[in-house]
């Protein structure tokens, strides 16, 4: 059998948005499917509202814990500007799934820089698959604005060939029981949207 090429998802966002839970969930799912998996996170200083990146990689054998430029099959972005920041990491013909929410970084808040306009259009013009959704609105619809991560997981599920049971197992093992129903709802909304 041919060796499976390593698959790469980059999860990017703003520190505090819940990107670590998303990577934990994906890691669980991929391990259950029998893949070799590596998930790389950054802790500490950058978690304080800075730009955060998590790498999720799987295949028959995964070496590097990080995804390098031109390697990502998919970028899952929790915020619009962050999707734009990391396009260099995307493979030619890759896909960006992006929450349309805009969170101003401090240089924009302080008036030293401006938030780029029409980013959605500019991303689409790159000849890549861009899937935009308002994950914050869907999370609020599910009952809590903090469920943005599960909405985005739901959207990711649309593009990957994993079964409903596999996703549900991963969700059940990654979120606290008291938020399980809320998170399942958020996941379903993201998947359907």
């Amino acid at each position, binding site marked *: 059998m041919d060796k499976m090429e390593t698959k790469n998802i980059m999860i990017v966002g703003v520190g505090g948005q819940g990107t670590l839970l998303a990577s934990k969930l994906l890691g669980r799912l991929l391990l259950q499917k029998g893949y070799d998996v590596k998930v790389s*996170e950054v802790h500490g200083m950058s978690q304080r509202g800075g730009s955060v990146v998590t790498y999720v990689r799987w295949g028959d054998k995964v070496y590097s814990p990080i995804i390098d430029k031109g390697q990502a099959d998919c970028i899952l972005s929790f915020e619009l500007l962050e999707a734009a920041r990391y396009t260099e990491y995307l493979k030619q013909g890759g896909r960006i799934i992006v929450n349309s929410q805009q969170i101003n970084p*401090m240089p924009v808040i302080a008036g030293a820089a401006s938030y*780029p306009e029409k980013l959605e259009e500019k991303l689409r013009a790159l000849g890549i698959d861009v899937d935009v959704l308002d994950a914050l609105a869907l999370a609020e619809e599910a009952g809590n604005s903090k469920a943005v991560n599960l909405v985005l997981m739901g959207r990711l599920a649309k593009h990957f060939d994993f079964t409903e049971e596999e996703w549900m197992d991963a969700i059940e093992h990654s979120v606290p029981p008291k938020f399980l129903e809320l998170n399942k709802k958020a996941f379903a909304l993201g998947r359907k949207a």
Partner: protein
Amino acid sequence: MKTLMLGNEAVARGIYEAGCAFVSSYPGTPSTEITEYAAKYEEIYAEWAPNEKVALEAAFGASLAGKRSFCAMKHVGLNVAADPLFTISYTGVNAGLVIGVADDAGMHSSQNEQDSRHYARAAKLPMLEPSDSAEALAFSKLAYELSEKYDTAVLMKMCTRVSHSQSVVEPGERELPIQKEYEKNPAKYIMMPANAKKRHPEVETRTKALEEWAETAQINRIEEGNDHSFGIVTSSTCYQYVKEAFGDTYPVLKLGMIWPMPKQKIKDFAAGVEQLAVVEELDGFIESHCKDLGLQVSGKELFSNIGELSQNQVKEKLGKPAPAGVSLDENIPARPPVMCAGCPHRSIFYVLKKLKLTVLGDIGCYTLGAVPPLGAIDTTICMGASVSGLHGFVKAKEEHTGKSVAVIGDSTFIHSGVTGLINIAYNESDATVIILDNSITGMTGHQQNPTTGYNLKGDPCTKIDLESLCRAVGISRVRVVDPYDMETCQSVIEEELAAKEPSVIISRRPCALLKYVKHPGPVCSDPEKCKGCKACMNIGCPAISMVDGKAKIDATLCVGCGVCEQLCKFDALGAAR
């Protein structure tokens, strides 16, 4: 059963399986989770020590008592622990002693990117270097075997990418080592000159023996390749980059023990390839060793000694094209980390800036007080340097008195600020030290410390009273303020700066992210009243932005600390009505 584990969790699992019974550490990114995970095992006594020196000495004491012991720290923490480190090298151990040290190439969360491997050579201690979680687990167990077999502390060197990446491991069972008793042995444990002189040759003999072991050790392995035009010597996460870049193309010598390194094994490897290359992050440590062996080798002439490497860099530098990404021609504003909304440190920095003071800073979340628009900090060096530095700053030039302060967090103050304060009291400088007491060790992710009243396991314990501590070392002026009350903060700071004696101001309010902290709820902005003066923008709160010339509060971020309200002259910001 196979499971995904963070490298740090795998170290904790490894020491658990090896029968480790005692862990003492000080938190520091990227090492912190080793100790947090170790504390989850009931069989392991685990604690946060006030600093790394204390942690290592405590771990040594436990080893002396006959229990396998461990302590973890970040790279700069090893500087603090260096004093016991170099002499523990002479004494050796009783039960196994392993020291975890995590480097931070790329400085994701550090003030420098020193290469800890130099410590292994300088202190003459063996150092293992895992490249993923499975090795982190296996090497932790091996480290105890080596420690007891060779009578030495063993360094376990991690890095951000190994510590903070999850990969697949298969946990085993805990096995208790042979029980050891403490036996009095002055010649081995009392390092006064007469004894130490006899121990030093033992250290050199031990290093020779470990060098021998390194020649045949399975963790220093050669992976064959089909193209011998290059042979690559590497270790740690760089091994993963090399394999990702070249697969089985070139032969690879992967070093699992980075000190001492084998000699003959490397020479033999080099003899079988046309060109020898070393791929390693930061300094040319392996490269120097190869050069000492008289080998022709390419290393730092290809790869930078600054920051992290990656698979693309390895490809490009060794002559293989790296993939090009999708390029977006757009100016993307940076997103630096910021103080959280409601952070109790923010208002203090606003006041310090307003008073145009020179501020000697320290290590913690509050280092973010250096970032615009606050920009209120003048220096950040290392743990405790604010307090001791301030003493020199005001002693050297009298005109600095009354115009400069030190700011330091509660945990950092206990770590090594208090000794600086003793110097201020003892040598009588009119220094004003502000302790930012947010009741937790914040930056590393909320660890307890001696001022919080809880220990690592979460149990209530003795709580150091900061006011009494400061008074006990000789500071009679000790004031406590609530940082959310800016007017009082300002007047207290002014009074203490004017006082002709040293003083401590404790700015006390728990971290806004602590679960037990109750917030009043978001502030509202009134666009009718807002004149667009931007006074509220000067505190750098991520919850406030200007939209169409008016201040707008992001209700998902705002916790209602009320600091911005105090800045608004037009009553445009206030509690929701």
